[in-house]
């Protein structure tokens, strides 16, 4: 005779014997209709407040923030490296062709 390999499971399954069908109350249809009406396409817009959207937005903002910060640090370093005073003004003026030239 084959030995029962799952005696505890079988013992627990007996506790389900005579299980009644769990049902909903008689207002289920009313709630369902209400939900269906709410689900109909709405005018206007709403904020997506699901955790996944909130976290993604936060991560995106942090990434943009990081990029902006690194750009700022880089710009400052470049400015500090270039020669100070008139020469930087001179190069700025040259780049925009704003040097004073007199035709007189």
């Amino acid at each position, binding site marked *: 005779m084959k030995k029962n*390999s*799952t005696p505890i*499971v079988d013992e627990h399954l*007996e506790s*389900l014997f005579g299980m*009644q069908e*769990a049902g*909903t109350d008689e207002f289920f249809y009313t709630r369902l209709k209400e939900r269906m009406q709410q689900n109909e396409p709405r005018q206007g817009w709403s904020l997506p407040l699901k955790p996944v959207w909130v976290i993604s937005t936060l991560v995106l903002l942090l990434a943009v923030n990081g990029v902006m910060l690194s750009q700022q640090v880089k710009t400052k370093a470049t400015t500090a490296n270039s020669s100070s005073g008139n020469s930087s003004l001179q190069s700025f003026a040259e780049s925009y062709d704003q040097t004073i030239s007199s035709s007189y």
Partner: protein
Amino acid sequence: MNEQELIQQLRQGNEPAFRWLVENYRNRVFHTVLNILQDSKEAEDAAQETFIQVFESVGSFKQESSLSTWMYRIAVRKALDKLRRRKTRQRLHQVLPWWMPDEKKSSNELFHHPGIAAENKEKAAVLFKAIEALPEKQKLAFTLIKVQGMNYEEACAVMGQNIKAVESLITRAKLNLQKLLEEYYRTLK
């Protein structure tokens, strides 16, 4: 009203036909999703979503199976979607415990099925807890056949699997449950 007439009327958006369908199937659909989800609130939600989808997509129902099998298939899919989302929430809770403080509390609670006799409630709750830990397919096969009492043929149609695959899932589910229950009682000692 026979099934063909019912489908025709549902396709025409006939509200009394839809009401008839809901009133006749709401308990069976709710019972199915409750056994899978082990949570009355989520089961109500999944049952509502099932009927909404039936109403919206009956036009594309190809009648390769009976209307009730098709409906159960939708219900099972809705319940599994909710289970997956619950697992994601629980994982998120482990990383960010302050995000959803109620999540841990709900995951530790035992499920007491409303349809089980009072003297069997504790034992059944332990079994439900063990079923919850099974892999998804084993859990579904075991719940439909052993808990809900669905016959193999219907369960195969609902799950979209052949009989051998379902039998194998049941065997593996039982062996895994045996280990889980042994472990549970060992920790109690």
